[in-house]
């Protein structure tokens, strides 16, 4: 019996799409189990129900979706790079989980059902709503950072560097996640170095205006005396 554990993902996908060998499919299921289970488990945990039964069902559904429509997906990825297929498997798994929870929420809430609201009902402004003290404070902070940031980024890559800064601080993406995004064209180290450089300069600009002119004069030359 041929062992399939050593063949590449591209080769495995190509052979699964072309041949009718159940052992190839065992290898396919075994190879992608951890990846699919991870995505399903995390998405399901975030969206509400990550019970064993639900996660197992969604994993199975993901495999069936990958094989749906006469294995069209596998055939279309025969000539593509491994990363592209892995990315696609992740996207299919996430969409399977999201569609499942979307459908179950719709069922729970009742499609077409309209809840009765009293005439004098006035919704309370949440912290996230525009106009709340928190959001005004946040808008002011973003404006302040934007002004300082304009002075910290320069050169041909300023647009990209500005984006990296906001994706890191505002969206909360890690340097690795930013480097992985399509079109960024940098390694994780490259992204980290841009963030460090901008952060240092920005921090200095944000911190220094807080010290008065009197303090600057009094402070004299920099470089402390060793003990």
């Amino acid at each position, binding site marked *: 019996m041929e062992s399939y554990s050593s063949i590449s993902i591209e080769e495995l996908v190509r052979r699964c799409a072309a041949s009718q060998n159940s052992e190839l499919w065992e290898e396919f299921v075994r190879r992608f189990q951890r990846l699919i289970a991870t995505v399903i488990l995390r998405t399901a945990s975030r969206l509400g129900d990550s019970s064993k039964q639900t996660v197992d069902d969604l994993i199975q559904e993901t495999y069936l979706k990958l094989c749906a429509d006469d294995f069209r997906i596998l055939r279309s990825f025969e000539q593509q790079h491994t990363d592209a297929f892995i990315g696609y498997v992740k996207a299919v798994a996430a969409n399977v989980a999201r569609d499942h929870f979307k459908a179950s929420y719709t069922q729970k809430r009742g499609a077409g059902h309209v809840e009765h609201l009293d005439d004098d009902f006035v919704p309370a402004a949440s912290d996230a709503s525009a106009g709340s003290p928190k959001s005004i404070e946040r808008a002011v902070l*973003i404006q302040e950072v934007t002004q300082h940031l304009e002075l910290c980024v320069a050169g041909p890559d300023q647009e990209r560097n500005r*984006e990296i800064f906001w994706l890191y601080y505002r969206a909360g993406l890690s340097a690795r*996640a930013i480097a992985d995004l399509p*079109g960024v064209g940098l390694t994780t180290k490259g992204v980290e170095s841009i963030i460090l450089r901008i952060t240092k300069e920005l921090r200095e600009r944000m911190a220094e205006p807080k010290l008065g002119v009197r303090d600057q004069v009094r402070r004299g030359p920099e470089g*402390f005396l060793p003990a």
Partner: protein
Amino acid sequence: MNLHLNNDQIDELLQATPGGKPNADENRKYLEDARRHLEGCTDCQMRMRAHEQAIDRLGSLKLNMPGVKGPMCPPEDVWVDVAAGIFRQDSNDLRTHAAQCDHCGPLLRQTKEDFAHDLTPEEERRITDLSSSTTDWQERLAVKIHDTQNLLPLVSPPKYRSPLLLRSLLAPWRLAFGGALIGLIMLGVRDYRRIAYLSAQNLEATAQIRHLEQSVLQQSTQIAQLTAESRRSSTPATASEPQTTGNVQIASLVLDPGLTRGIGELKRLAVPRGTDIAKITLRLEELPDGLLREDLVTADGETKWTQELRPSESQRKTNSLSLVLPVYILTPNDYQIVLSRQAPGGFERFATYTFRVTR
């Protein structure tokens, strides 16, 4: 002379964790000296605090939960593709949007976190406990997929019928069955007449649809004529007041390219009652060569209008393009006009305009 910590030294103190071990003895001594200076210097303590506050403020920019969805936010499924690294033509625009949006940025982060390969010990344990992690489950699924694959190419071969079959059909009970069948066919004929009547009605309705299609075609031709007329005019309109051209009422608006960050910044196109046409002038810094495409997209991502065009000389002189639309497609909503130029792999987006339609 009174010497103080400089920014690099403050930076090193901030990066050195209290329990951290410096790499070299020299570095450790340097940091100890800096700390000693800091303990006795109120000026440097104040500066250190200001730097710490700046770090805290930068840290507070991160939102744990996605904020309110804005009119320009794409559908949430888009972030699954971006996080998975699937190439999209609009990848760069989406990344730019996520960097500036409190709704989409955190959504992208969440999806990226879902796709991360490193597992926590708890996740590791839960995945190991799943039935789908057992060889038995995986083998069963593999067989199921394999069986599905086997079923697909199978087409039932035509059955061979022998002459004996005809003789057996003449058996008395079969004749009785045949009689009943004829009765049913008679009933079927009556239904057929009803169907014929409905078909006639259907034909009539089809004729009416064709008539309506012709009317729509006529209207489209009128719009195309108006588009051509407006292109001939080199003076862009500057107000959103309706203008009268013969007996046609036109509402106009001038737009500059760029993403709009807040609702307050959105330009508005007021469409008064009785207006027939909306003329939207798009200003550009530079008009590219070749074929261009204009797409009118709603806030929900629905494309309402598309047209391809080659800019005229007068448009090139004024660096502006005009989009003339029938107002019935501009229902009150937020819209985006996307300008694309022809590129080797299809059309490539180069400018975006946003505006709101009010009635």
